[in-house]
């Protein structure tokens, strides 16, 4: 087998492997956390999220208490801890339970829970991720396409010359 044909084959197999892993890892993943937030303070939790469909459920205990919730990416969080002005991926003020969807880019996201009430609260956070990881899917398809194009070009060149 010629070296470039072999390279094409290796790329095709690598692409198929990446796609296989994407399919394998497309099952529903549920991450749960219980966070205690003292009165007048805030708590943060970090999650590595993929380019999948993400659903977030937050439940505050006791249900009469209300918290402010913010979802920040790394750049926004760095501004937040430095005390600079920052934007956010998602934010809601004064809620006791919420259920929302968002489509993150691959990376670390920080969930900030601010308790502005006079009593400590417990927060039940559930993050549900489902669907294919779009970024890895594109990588797999790209590798597959490059491999196929390389082999096709070599075949054409072989016939021509």
């Amino acid at each position, binding site marked *: 087998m010629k070296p470039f044909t072999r390279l094409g084959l290796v790329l095709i197999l690598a692409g198929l492997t990446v796609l296989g892993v994407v399919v394998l890892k497309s099952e529903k993943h549920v991450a749960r956390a219980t966070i205690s937030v003292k009165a007048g303070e805030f708590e943060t939790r970090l999650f590595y999220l993929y380019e999948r469909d993400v659903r977030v459920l937050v439940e505050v205990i006791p249900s009469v208490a209300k918290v402010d919730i913010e979802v920040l990416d790394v750049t926004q969080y760095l501004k937040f*801890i430095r005390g600079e002005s920052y934007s956010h991926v998602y934010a809601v003020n004064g809620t006791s339970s919420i259920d929302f969807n968002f489509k993150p880019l691959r990376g670390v996201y920080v969930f900030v829970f601010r308790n502005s009430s006079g009593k400590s609260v417990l927060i039940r956070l559930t993050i549900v991720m489902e669907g294919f990881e779009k970024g890895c899917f594109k990588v797999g398809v790209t590798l597959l396409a490059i491999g196929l194009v390389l082999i096709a070009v070599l075949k054409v060149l072989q016939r021509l010359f």
Partner: protein
Amino acid sequence: MLVGKLSSLVRFELSRLLRFPVLEVIVVLAVFNSFTAYMSFYLMGTYTDKTGGSFIYLIVLDGLRRTFYAMINYLFISFIYATLTSSIAHAISSGLMKNLLSFPYRRSEVFIVESSVTFMVPFIIYLTAHLLPFPFFYPYPVQIGFGWLKWFLTVFLSFLYIFSICLTISLAFKTPIPSFISSVSILYAMSFITAGLRRNPLVNFIPPYCFINSILGHAHVYHLIPSSLLAIALIAICYIYFTRWLEL
């Protein structure tokens, strides 16, 4: 002159050892291992360090540690090295090695080239398959420094340990199928036996847990000395056997 002679030997060994579909299988296993590991990180935990820049540094460093940890996959590495070293056994049993030594190559040159190629190719493919996607999964501009060198050394020594066992067995059996089966069986048996000693503090000195614990931070570099010395001793014994006593 010597370099030219050895480079032709290297090319020959590369084409022989990585014949279809061996290279393809190594690439598929490495890519599968890499992406499965990368796509298994979900909860990063709580990083209480709130000092600005170092927060993201901790995340990236932790990601890199997980990447090196993923490389020590006993299942795949044992299988790959057992396959490649059994190909050396096949060269001996089929008479190919005798033909090769009829060319103007010294036995020491053949051994060094053969073992270097067999050891380095899976190591480089694994390193590439695991480190190349790292910026894709951790796209943060952070200067990591040299904190990863211990993990790199651990992965290198872990590969060397597995390679040395497989090479010794292949030269002992000199036939491919028994050497493949024995290599994989011995490495798995070692792994299972050591798993039973997991609570014993001595486990930090015994492979594969010395490598796993070194990357996880439960063991120091000096815990890797016995397994490294064993690997070097086995390769030295193989060298002496191949160059002086092996009858073809």
